């Protein structure tokens, strides 16, 4: 979380050091940069870390025993833990988004397009959902928070690397098939949704073929939404099935 805030402050510090003519073009919407930047990677690392520790830590600490021997439906416990993690994620996103808005306002003056702030928030949360679910699933499968964070993190970075490499090859070779293939990767929609929605709302286009984290193109928004929905649902389901049909393990002594 501290890293997220440092990223935000660092970003705006760098922006104030850039030549004024460079800043002028978007200084009225500088607040969006503070929301787009974490969605490139940090947000997803945070999401998978929270997801991994949401349930795994209960097993590690042995507190799962306490909760699971209360008159509580298993579904209520699972839902409570899942929603709790999402609420924490929302609070982080909300805090850094407010920070972006207020710092931008303070540094660059009145900001425009503030009415899309709720959409930006919603897009950030939605785009973080797949890796939150992946973290949750590995947390349930491995029941060790550090291990599941590493595995879920490996999935994220592998996905980003493959996406970048495939886009790069597609750009050089002019092979559009590769750009189609990357759409099946979990990072494609996750890292691209927020920048796409924000740049589209601002009437900008960051969609540079082959460059990661620059948007998916407005025409792909529905596909991105579907990808996010499918990845999130599949991994939430894996987590639920593993939780529902396996023993409550004790803390490693």
């Amino acid at each position, binding site marked *: 979380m501290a890293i997220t805030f440092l990223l935000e402050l660092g970003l705006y510090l760098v922006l104030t050091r850039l030549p004024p003519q460079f800043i002028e073009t978007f200084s009225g919407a500088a607040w969006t940069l503070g929301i787009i930047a974490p969605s490139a990677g940090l947000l997803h690392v945070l999401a998978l870390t929270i997801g991994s520790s949401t349930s795994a830590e209960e097993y590690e*600490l*042995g*507190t799962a*025993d*306490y909760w*699971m*021997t*209360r*008159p*509580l*439906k*298993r579904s209520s416990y699972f839902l409570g833990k899942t929603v709790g993690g999402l609420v924490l994620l929302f609070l982080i996103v909300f805090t850094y988004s407010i920070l972006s808005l207020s710092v931008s306002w303070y540094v660059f003056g009145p900001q425009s397009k503030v009415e899309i702030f709720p959409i930006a928030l919603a897009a950030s949360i939605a785009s973080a959902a797949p890796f939150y679910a992946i973290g949750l699933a590995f947390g349930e499968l491995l029941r060790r928070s550090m291990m599941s964070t590493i595995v879920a993190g490996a999935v994220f970075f592998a996905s980003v690397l493959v996406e970048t490499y495939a886009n790069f090859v597609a750009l050089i070779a002019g092979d559009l098939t590769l750009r189609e293939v990357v759409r099946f990767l979990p990072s494609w929609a996750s890292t691209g949704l927020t920048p796409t929605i924000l740049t589209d709302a601002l009437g900008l286009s960051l969609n540079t073929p082959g460059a990661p984290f620059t948007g998916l193109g407005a025409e792909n928004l529905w596909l991105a939404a579907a990808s996010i929905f499918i990845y999130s649902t599949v991994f939430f389901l894996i987590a639920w099935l593993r939780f529902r*049909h*396996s*023993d*409550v393990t*004790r*803390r490693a*002594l």
Partner: protein
Amino acid sequence: MSKNPVVVVDSFTKVYGDGTRIGPITLHVGEGEVYGLVGPNGSGKTTTLRAILGLLKPSGGKVSVYGLNPYSHPEKVNQKIGYSPEIPNYPPFFTAEKLLRVTCNMKKIIGKDADNEVRRILDLTGLVNHADRKIGNFSKGMVQRLSIGQALVGDPPLLILDEPMLGVDPVGRAHIRDVLLQLRKQGKTIIFSSHELYEVQRLSDRVAMVYMGKTVFEDMVMNILNNSPETKVVAELVSEPDGKLAKALEEISGVLEVAFEANKVVISVDSSLDPREKIAEKIVNLGYGLREFRISQPSLEEVFINRVKESVSG
């Protein structure tokens, strides 16, 4: 078992991922019984208790609590159970009172009722003066007492206590024993596992002995001790015993072994045949004179150790 069955574990087995197999374990706990589960580490006590709590799915056999399968209906079963784990782990930043309030809340005890319940539990466990202390700063004995306390929230009819005396100093142990005796008087059904066989003998009505994942025996404590081969008849004589007396006693059906210790005759007997009367009669008739005649019962620990030795030697 004549009382209404509360917990029935019938040929329960559990096979873990690494191939470790526990079971078959069979035990029956009736209403109002205090049931001791004894056995060495890794024998399957905790696994059995966790199956009763619905925390793990049996690989075979049947487990039922109040007629319900605890794995399929954990929320209904846990409404009637208070559980204290072997190693209690509670959020260390919670105070004792906070933990009890959260537990009350989960049992839908709220408002004034929750205040009274928290007060009652703190009184019962002797933690009134530590209500505002964080659990992370508690001693092991205090955590155990708090753990038993949270199990008592809502006054559940069935208590499952896994090693409630583990790591507790003698004073704390005495306190826990008093609490358990109070609960026993109240007619609670209690299942507890322990290595402290003296405590088990003192507190339990019925005992199951688990060894190498299997039930070695299950019976009323009194039956186990009375019918044990370790049960001996000790007769103190007026005159010194000799070989003639030994021979005469060995002829009695139910006499297994005769030994002399100065003026005493120590006779191992088969309790099911109860040869006490015939022994006394023979001693008197042969003119040795009887000063004292008593039954020497073994402790549960002696019985347990001998059963383990028998199991090991096959």
